[in-house]
């Protein structure tokens, strides 16, 4: 068994995904949550690249990863803008305090 194989990548990707999910749920800081989302996206990109190399043997997976990275960047830009407006209004970026709408 080769250690640089599909299994290693799958496990790394899975760990990244789950830690990202965990971070996104447990953090109070919106930026922290967003870091979790970035981890999730990274894990998917890694998975795509790995599958592209080991499983499909075509470059389409890599291309998918590139697009994921680009979208992630765009999402980060929007997140920053919204974050600033939240900060202006609430003076805080605690996700738990954003609960004026409920029920």
């Amino acid at each position, binding site marked *: 068994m080769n250690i640089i194989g599909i299994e290693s990548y799958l496990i790394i990707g899975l760990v990244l995904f789950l830690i990202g999910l965990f971070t996104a749920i447990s953090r109070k800081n919106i930026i922290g949550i967003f870091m979790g989302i970035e981890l999730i996206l990274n894990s998917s990109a890694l998975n795509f690249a790995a599958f592209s190399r080991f499983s499909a043997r075509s470059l389409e997976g890599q291309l998918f990863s590139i697009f994921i990275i680009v979208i992630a960047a765009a999402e980060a830009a929007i997140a920053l803008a919204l974050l600033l407006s939240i900060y202006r209004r609430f003076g805080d970026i605690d*996700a738990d305090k954003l609960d004026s709408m409920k029920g």
Partner: protein
Amino acid sequence: MTMREFIEQYGFIIVLAPLLGAAINGFLGKYIQKRSGERAVGLIANASVFISFCVALAAFAAVWSAEEDAHTVVCYLFNWLNVGALRADVSLLFDPLSAVMVLVITGIGFLIHIYSTGYMKGDPGCYRFFAYLNLFIFAMLILVLGENMLLMFIGWEGVGLCSYLLISFWFTKQANAQAGNKAFIVNRIGDFGFILGMLVLYSLLRESVFTGGLAGVEAPSLLSFRFLEMNIHLLTNTELFGISAATLVCLCLFVGAAGKSAQIPLYVWLPDAMAGPTPVSALIHAATMVTAGIYMIGRLHFLFSMSAAALQVIAVIGAATALFAATIGCVQNDIKKVLAYSTVSQLGYMFLGMGVAAYSAGIFHLMTHAFFKACLFLGSGSVILGMRHEQDIRWMGGLKKYMPRTFATFLIATLALSGLPPFSGFFSKDEILWQAWKTGHHGLWLMGFISAGITAFYMTRLVILTFYGLNRLHLRPSQDLEHDHDNHDHGRHDVRESPASITAPLIILAFFSLVAGFIGIPAALGGGNRFEHFLVPVFGHHASAPHHDPMEYLLMFASVTVALAGIAAGVFFYRIRPELPDKIVSRIKTFHRIVYNKYYVDEIYGVIFVSGTKLLAKASAAFDRYVIDLLVDLAAYVLRVNSYLSGAFDRIVVDGLVNGAASSFLFSGEQLRRLQTGKIQAYVMLLLFLIVIGVSFAVIM
């Protein structure tokens, strides 16, 4: 062009005319009324129903004169939907059953329209009222004439909608609004049964049609009544959820029928619906809409005949309703409420008839009841008008000399309802009771028999309190201010006979209450029971060949006796010894209170349904708010359990045991309140957990 061809081609006019009337009054009525007065609005509405009535007569003639084997006339309009295995046409089905119904609807509908022109005089919303009324006639005709169950369902919903609009017509009183809502909601429960029954029937039939042998039919109209009747045998051996398919479907449909026709346990809306204008009560809540359930059972009698169990349920519920509602009727003080409970009770009779498979007897009673109950309601409307919107019979009395025509018609209809011989009610009610006895349901017969006596009693009470003795209007407690038209300066001198537009329909209806029974004189009395013969093409020969059973005479005699006894009791208690009832009431106070409050059924429903619904709603709102956090907390607790297992366990259990369930609810409420809500990550948590559940499910499978 023969009558038959005429109906085949132009039969749709019956349906179209009221629709047109409704459209004209609905869209233009306001201007017409402003420009030409209410008379013009009324005229349009009356004319449209009259046209419809004339064509209905023609249709009746076409069915009547039809050849031996061609009693069904179909007026095909257009293909309505054609999808998958389902094909449904918009076409109208005329056969003896629907012809009778159409005549009743348009005929009585027309009379009530005339009456309404008098009754609604001076109301600014007159045009709206007539538009709804016409729309109702339209929907009712669709219900009756629809050639398939879907079309029937459209009409079924339509009449519900119109009745909702009409009950709530006078919005000024909060009670009306609530009554309208109650009617609609109870009807929705019934509709649920109807839809469910229809869907189950459809899918089962579809299965057997495609698997079983059915040749030569392409794109069958699975829900068309003719198709159903011919192919219903395919379902004989089908079972669903362990009971026979026919029983299941019939019970579902019966829930629908019970909702529409106000049977136990869904009758609660009908008495409340009396808050609407009186012509509406007469038309919808006595003569037509409430009989839709009976009509539906008659229409689908071949289906119901397949399930003895369902018929048994129907018969028992019918008889129980008849007795139950009659007892409530005895102690009501509102003139319309008395009549409403009487309607519920008479509908119970009809269901009893249907339940013992005496379909034509049930339909016969439906027809005669339509006449005399409409007459009674309209008469009560006349009284209410005369009394300036006083509805409480305790403050009436002595109206005989002020309103002679109203009194005479009311009396005739009362005698018909009480089931005295030559009046129409006698024949139809007796037929049902006899059939119940003959088919071996002696217990049910007894219930019907007793309620016949009670009916005679409370109707006598109503007549005596309203029309005899002295006027008691001045006795009315003055703080009773619940009516808009309340004035203290008007007295009994103002009471006078209603105008001709009101009394004329009364007289016509009274006439029919008197004579309508003659078309169904049983063979035992030398008649041919023409009505039943007319319906034979629909229902077949359910009754065995007439042989003169002496029992039949005996029962007839018994029921006349019990009716007379009821009347005599009424006269005795309310005319000869009027102080007795109060004494008796004070003797049996508790029981009287229970009956007077309608056995507290409304309250019980209130507790069960209203708070049940509220609880459900609260729970579901709480679900979104709390459950996500609950998941969070649950998981947390599970992992922390070793730290304070004993303490928490003790507290919860001991608390629970000591303070009972309430405190544990409080406890969990505290737990839940402590949590914050509206948090985005809690939402993600829900997502995570459900994905975990889904994924583990995938692995386990």
